[in-house]
């Protein structure tokens, strides 16, 4: 077999090519599978007394949508002692419970592990990468490699996905979508005009509105007019 084929995706050139959420899903899934875990969850850190909200705090995961609320509840209730340890720890740690055990869908078995890897954004926000599966906790060397790989992926994820939301500057495509919205076009109509999917158009509208601090489409257009983005 070609040796190149054996290089895990996340350690090859795809790392530097990741653009959208699916690209990052592929990278996190790769690190998960290459290390013998079954599931991953990029989790935003929450402070003591808060509850995990799947929509706001689960940034990317391969856990099915319908299982996310149960997992958020289990984490909030500190099953597996993950929540309490994220509050106290700034280093990686492992829990001996799987996601299924935490949510009560499976019974505990000796060979299961949830590994929590701490991640930090340059602006000081804290995140965790949870890797979960039916395997033993990693040793020091493997842990060091997992930390390095997850930090590299997260740095790019932050730059391309998380900061993208926080930047105040509209991209050319976003400005174009805002202009068509100001002409009264629906997302579906804009998608046809620009040759994009409706999903992409809605993503551009949502992203533009966040950048402009707008609360809805009308507000977004009003701000865009004031700033001269549309005439």
């Amino acid at each position, binding site marked *: 077999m070609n040796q190149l084929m054996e290089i895990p995706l996340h350690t090859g050139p795809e790392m530097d090519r990741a653009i959208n959420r*699916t690209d990052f*899903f592929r990278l996190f899934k790769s690190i998960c599978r290459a290390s013998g875990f079954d599931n991953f969850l990029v989790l935003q850190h929450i402070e003591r007394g808060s509850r995990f909200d799947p929509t706001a705090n689960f940034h990317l995961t391969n856990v099915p949508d319908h299982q996310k609320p149960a997992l958020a509840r289990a984490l909030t209730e500190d099953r597996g002692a993950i929540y309490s340890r994220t509050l106290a720890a700034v280093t990686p740690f492992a829990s001996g419970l799987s996601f299924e055990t935490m949510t009560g869908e499976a019974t505990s078995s000796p060979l299961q592990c949830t590994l929590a890897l701490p991640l930090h954004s340059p602006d000081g926000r804290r995140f965790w990468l949870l890797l979960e599966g039916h395997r033993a906790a990693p040793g020091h060397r493997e842990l060091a490699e997992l930390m390095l790989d997850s930090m590299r992926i997260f740095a790019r994820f932050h730059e391309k996905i998380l900061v993208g939301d926080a930047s105040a500057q509209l991209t050319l495509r976003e400005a174009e979508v805002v202009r068509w919205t100001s002409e009264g076009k629906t997302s579906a109509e804009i998608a046809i005009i620009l040759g994009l999917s409706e999903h992409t158009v809605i993503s551009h509208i949502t992203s533009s*509105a966040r950048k402009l601090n707008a609360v809805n489409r009308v507000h977004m257009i009003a701000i865009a007019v004031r700033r001269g983005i549309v005439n």
Partner: protein
Amino acid sequence: MGQAMEAATDRIRILMVDDEILEFKVLQQKMRTSPDYTIDADFAQSIEEAVERAKTVAYEMILVDNRLLPNNDFRETVPRLREIGYTGPIGVISSDISDAYFQQFEEFGVDFRIGKDEIDYHALRHIISEYVNYEVPEAWREDLN
């Protein structure tokens, strides 16, 4: 997982465009392993056939093989689907997505790219959740009526 079968209510219509029917059979088999969705997969062997099918069936998603003879790559084929007003998600799949032009996929109306060997039920579920079953926040829905 236990609740997975209870959630198997969604029926997703997908069009797979590939000039190799064997590739379609492989993907169809992978789609059968997903317990969360029932996937109805149709097959088209050329972009012309895909365009005709997309005119008559409202597919929730179209997956296009990057190299469809006699076309060069997705930069030629995907705009053909957009020209007929298809506004659903389009994914490009390929055994090799490393060429530099793949970085421009969004400009050609492509929503995502993925390697053929990366497609499994986790990837399919993510794609469906991300592009088909996504919910638009209330504030960003159309201000119609």
